[in-house]
């Protein structure tokens, strides 16, 4: 009986979905303890967070709206990882996609929406894609790790966009931003005055595309082969350098879409600091989603809820919203070290057995 139980428990801890869920719960618990140590009430905090994320239609819209760019960011990270690349430059690629999308949205005039919107998407994808591909290109040429390259290119993208938004493309007014996009380029809001736009459907469609691309196409097959065993892929005639470029381009294009959707749905223009760490959240989201499209969508929704909830926790309680970052860091920690989770579960199991023996 106990033997059987232990086997099933071991099986469960092999299951990545289960591990991700446990990691999330553990992070919530540990952050609660941190809140307590800091002198706040975790119950108060979490209930404020929950209300903020799901309490009303508007709150729910906030959650889903925040999740939209996060889905793109998570997909970008997951896609790169499935192709054997560690793309930590999603933040920069979101900017590299948002900026051209904003320009195409603002300066192309007189187009019907069904032309203008796809053109903005295209601009976003190409911008993000080329920015990411630059890292891939430098990796191939200079044999430098893409981790370093993509991190550094984040800053280049950030300050370059900031410069352009300050000078060449600056809109009238106090804000450092570009001109407002044409109505024909705007994504309609699903709930009035919320962040939730039709962009979420686009994000879900792209998640399906990523799944289809990885599992049903030869380039997807080659990418997965490279990620798992580049030597065997090479012997199988896969041009690794070229595939890495494609992986980076498509990953960057996904990130760029995130930027475009944010511009076209939420802000209506490119504005500095609009990414607010989506790119880095993307890493955590992909990790928690085990780099699968479905997992990524689910964890992006959870992260969206956390973000939305933390804003209202900030507003309704004295607990600083930064606790959300503690929580996210813990999620990454627990998901990427399944050993911790397994050890904790095993210990609990042993204790149970001991108690039984005692009784």
């Amino acid at each position: 009986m106990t033997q059987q139980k232990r086997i099933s428990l071991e099986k469960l801890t092999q299951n990545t979905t289960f591990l991700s869920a446990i990691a999330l719960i553990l992070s919530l618990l540990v952050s609660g303890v941190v809140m307590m140590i800091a002198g706040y009430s975790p119950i108060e905090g979490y209930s404020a967070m929950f209300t903020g994320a799901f309490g009303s239609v508007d709150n729910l819209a906030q959650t889903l709206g925040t999740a939209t760019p996060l889905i793109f960011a998570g997909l970008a990270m997951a896609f790169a990882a499935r192709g054997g690349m560690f793309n930590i430059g999603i933040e920069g690629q979101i900017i590299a996609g948002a900026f051209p999308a904003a320009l195409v949205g603002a300066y192309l005039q007189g187009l019907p929406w069904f032309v203008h919107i796809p053109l903005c998407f295209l601009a976003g994808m190409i911008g993000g894609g080329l920015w990411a591909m630059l890292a891939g290109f430098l990796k191939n040429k200079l044999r430098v790790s893409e981790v370093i390259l993509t991190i550094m290119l984040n800053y280049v993208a950030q300050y370059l966009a900031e410069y352009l938004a300050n000078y060449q493309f600056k809109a009238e007014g106090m804000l450092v931003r570009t001109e407002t996009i044409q109505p024909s380029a705007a994504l309609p809001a699903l709930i009035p005055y919320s962040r939730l736009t039709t962009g979420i459907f686009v994000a879900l469609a792209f998640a399906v595309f990523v799944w289809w691309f990885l599992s049903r196409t030869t380039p997807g097959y080659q990418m997965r082969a490279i990620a798992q065993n580049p030597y065997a892929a090479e012997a199988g005639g896969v041009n690794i350098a070229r595939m890495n470029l494609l992986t980076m381009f498509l990953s960057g294009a996904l990130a760029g879409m995130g930027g475009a959707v944010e511009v076209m749905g939420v802000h209506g223009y490119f504005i500095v600091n609009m990414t607010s760490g989506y790119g880095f959240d993307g890493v955590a989201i992909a990790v928690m989603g085990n780099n699968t499209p479905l997992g990524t969508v689910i964890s992006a929704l959870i992260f969206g809820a956390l973000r939305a909830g933390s804003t209202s926790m900030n507003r309704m309680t004295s607990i600083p919203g930064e606790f959300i970052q503690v929580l996210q860091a813990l999620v990454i920690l627990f998901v990427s070290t399944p050993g911790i989770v397994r050890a904790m579960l095993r210990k609990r199991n042993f204790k149970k057995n001991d108690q039984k023996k005692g009784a």
Partner: protein
Amino acid sequence: MYAVEMHGITKQFKNVLANSNVELMVKRGEIHSLLGENGAGKSTLMNILYGMYAPTSGQVVVQGKPVVIENPLKAIELGIAMVHQHFMLIEPLTVAENVVLGYEPKKHGCFDMKKAVEEVNTLADQYGLHVDARQKVEELSVGTKQRVEILKALYRKADILILDEPTAVLTPQEVSDLFRVLRKLRESGKTIIIITHKLKETLELADTVTVLRKGQVIASLPVTEQMDQAQLAELMVGRIVSLETEKQPVPGEHEVVMALRGAVVTRDKRNVLDDISLEIRAGEILGIAGVEGNGQTELIDVLTGLQRLSGGAVVLQGKQLPAGRITPRSMLAAGVGHIPEDRGKRGFVGGFTIAENIVLGYHRNQPFARHGLINRKARDEFADRVARQYDVRMDSIQDTVGSLSGGNQQKVIIGRVFAQDPKVIIAAQPTRGVDIGAIEYIHGELVKMRDAGKAVLLISADLDELMRLSDKIAVLYDGRIVDRRDASEYDERTLGALMTGHTPDSVEKEVKQA
């Protein structure tokens, strides 16, 4: 009387019963061969003895005393040492430093290098293990590294020595050196257990043999004059296996299908392949003999497009290939099939299914894919047929290749290559780490391909395999082909001498003198 007794040892891994009620009795001062196929449970059993695993149940008795061996430190305390297949040495350190590591002689609290060297030299002389105690391990040959490992065990005052597949990486000369050392150790009262699947070595070296199959002891017998390989093979595999491969010369013209002309590969200003010319002919198996690291990998990589030539040319069916355009993909497309020397590295993607792996390298071709879209139905049907034809033991083609045994993994690779009807087959170490049953099968298939008029290049560290399968043999030493003849003109000794750098003339002289 007994150095080691293991009673009723059972080891249950998650889904695998690795050892089931195993009884092992090793007499003091004997060489005991633990014989079995891959996955028979030999290594598990020895890892239990060495304290790496705890048995699920059972009792270990060392030198007459029941013991619990929780970890390797405890094993060392009890005088048990293990020489692993993959050496546990620190490459940049000297031999002496490696040997004394953890038990360093000290002077005023500091490491006493001089004393360490002295002690290691004394120990080495005592057992005829020739090493230079001051040399760095990274400069040593594989055989010498192994001697360092043995010294390490002796320095720790081990009385019981476990060697895991000790001859797997050695040349014939190194093997006979090792055997000499092991016999000397036995004379001085040490007990030696060798884990092996090699029948010949068991018969030559061991006093007693214990045969394991599927985690159980099948037999434990003294090795006698009357014992032969067929008998041991049958115990090991559980059925009669043929150890010979039937092979008749292929009649007719053997045209050159693929050739190298003056091929040179330079790395770090050194020619790792130096002016190699060879011809791979239809209906022939050309064997390449040589100690690993003498250019085999580069030769394979050149022929399969993985390595650019620094000089010379690759000729395929009479046409010289443009050097800049040779890629793995172009070679596969031209009909050069590749059975990689290290299947875990180049051969397959462990997390991919059997179906996905069977098309790797041919995955773009119709009907597996069209316009970049995978046709899963066509691929799976093909994979299923190939997997069955090449006798891959599996539940379904959707199993990952990583979950298969070594022999079945190799059959997936062989099926992949042979099913594409290649013109040339580059078969590198085709039976490394593969069970006897699978070896028999793979050898048969290779000969079939040759009989069907394919040109085969066979690179193998196993001299028996080379001599059994090859029509011609070329010897590779230090990036050069130093000798080549019909396979029938070579014997194991001559090949062994040529492989280690003796010139053909000196070898002939030696043979005449003997």
